[in-house]
């Protein structure tokens, strides 16, 4: 793989984590325009841990993830009673307040650390420990695969069904005895953790982060990826990221007109497929087709023999 391809692949995996965090909230019927805040919290917290406190990478990433999850829980708690649109705007307001606060935050013990709008330079763990871009891509990919496996496992548990139930109709879910508020908090905490994990991975690859990176465009793209790719399965957000970053940006065929083409396509698309490419009926149909094929595949030779 060329250096450019490794870079694009790493970016795609990091964005996929952010898109998955938006996806988790969409599953419980919430649209958040503020997931970039937890991406930023994860980036700053893990960068502080590795560059200032000199922790090893894995511990720093874990600290960032934990910080993101806690922050997300604290933010989601007072917002529980807000309805869809108000929730979306409130998350955006929080994210912008965080971005502005980070722009004013200067704290550099030992020469490195956040310097307001100047950003946080020299997050050099990868360079100091001779981790190649390819090896880092392997780490990021492993993280992403683990997260996807965990989500796939969750979908088959009662918790996964309950989360989807809340997203479908929260009144009905409450009438069935599901603790709607608590489950939404769980989803928000997990979404914050995923976004923060993505942020930590991003910060260490880029070696430099600044508050302006965590602007509303980032969070809205994450929501866009989840919606385009589809809400039927955790692979949906990945598909969305692949379509935008992999196909449109990387090929540069639409240079300059990318958003004109892509924006129009997305809007047209959403008119006919409001829950994305991989929506629930399609995922169900694929699952059934696979099951049928599995049942028939061993039978085929026998039928041949009989014929």
């Amino acid at each position: 793989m060329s250096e450019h391809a490794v870079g694009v692949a790493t970016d795609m995996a990091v964005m996929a984590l952010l898109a998955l965090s938006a996806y988790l909230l969409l599953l419980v019927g919430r649209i958040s325009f503020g997931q970039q805040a937890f991406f930023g919290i994860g980036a700053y917290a893990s960068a502080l841990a590795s560059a200032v406190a000199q922790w090893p990478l894995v511990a720093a990433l874990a600290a960032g993830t934990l910080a993101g999850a806690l922050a997300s829980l604290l933010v989601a708690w007072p917002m529980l009673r807000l309805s869809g649109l108000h929730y979306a705007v409130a998350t955006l307001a929080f994210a912008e307040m965080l971005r502005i606060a980070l722009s004013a935050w200067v704290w550099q013990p030992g020469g490195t650390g956040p310097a307001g709008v100047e950003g946080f330079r020299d997050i050099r763990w990868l360079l100091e420990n001779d981790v190649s871009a390819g090896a880092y891509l392997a780490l990021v990919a492993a993280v992403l695969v683990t997260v996807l496996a965990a989500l796939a496992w969750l979908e088959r548990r009662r918790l996964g069904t309950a989360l989807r139930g809340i997203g479908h109709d929260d009144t009905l879910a409450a009438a069935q005895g599901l603790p709607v508020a608590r489950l939404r908090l769980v989803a928000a905490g997990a979404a914050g953790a995923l976004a923060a994990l993505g942020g930590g991975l991003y910060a260490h690859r880029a070696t430099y982060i600044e508050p302006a990176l965590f602007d509303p465009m980032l969070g809205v793209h994450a929501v866009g990826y989840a919606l385009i790719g589809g809400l039927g399965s955790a692979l949906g957000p990945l598909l969305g990221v692949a379509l935008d970053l992999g196909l449109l940006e990387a090929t540069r065929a639409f240079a300059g007109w990318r958003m004109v083409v892509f924006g129009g396509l997305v809007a047209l698309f959403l008119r006919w497929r409001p829950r994305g490419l991989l929506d629930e009926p399609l995922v169900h149909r694929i699952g059934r087709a696979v099951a049928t094929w599995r049942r028939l595949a061993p039978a085929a030779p026998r039928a041949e023999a009989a014929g």
Partner: protein
Amino acid sequence: MVTELLQRTLDGALDGAGYALVGLGLTLSFGTLKRLNLAYGAVAMLAAYVGAWLHARHGVPGWAVALVLVGAATVLGLYVEWLCFAGARAGTAEAMRGGAPVAGADAREVVALAASFAVWMQLEQLAHHLLPRELNAFPALASDGEWALDALVLRPDRALLALLALALCLGLARWLETSRGGLAWRAAASQRTAAQLAGVEVARVQRIGFAAACGLSGLAAFAVLAMDGQVTPMFGMWVLVKGLVAAMLGGLGSMRGVLAGGLLLGMVEANAQAAFGALGREFATWALLLAVLLAPWRRVGFNRMPAHV
């Protein structure tokens, strides 16, 4: 000291009138469809770019640019409505069949948000292709004159802008309350099914309301930009954010509310800037919005239905 505070608050209120002006179209389109149009700022920006392009390349005079802005914004509004919000109107048929809307973020709301966001990106890039520079000249109508009242000073051009905002917000609210067309609009907004049964052409009223809201954004964009004499690529975002905060403070869908919300926002921002600088001003915008959204008392209008204009 007191004079300074008063002067600052007065300047803030005048800025706030601009916020109310850009928020008016947003609150009208929300009242019409119960959907937030994220492409609102981009529509105003692309219309302003078309106007600035005509002004710079072909020397079109200021009054014609104002007409172009309103016309372009209306046409773009029809495009956005067709692409993103036709699904919201299809909801009428669903409501007539007796299907209850799903509580929380219903699927159509999410879809309309996402689709209008995509169109926002599209329109913004089109504007960028039209005029790729960071700063673009716009017909300037600002004057240097000042009116002094004791120690307070007031610029007449900005006072005129505030008067325009006041007249438009109050006039529109009054029109919606007293006229036949306004009655049809309110009926379509608050009870689609009942309005349709009573003979209101809901789809038509909604399309007109939405296009008129976008036309208003063109007028607001002209008034605000003519004060600065220039337009930058940040304008779309500025219109959306300031308009949204003003509209939400006053209760989305309320015409008098957006006026009050805009004035409040302007005054809070001006004083926050004096106390904490430019970052403090930005922070105060969002903090005010979040505080209103999370306030335990819910007297501020965002709970109310837009039947209360």
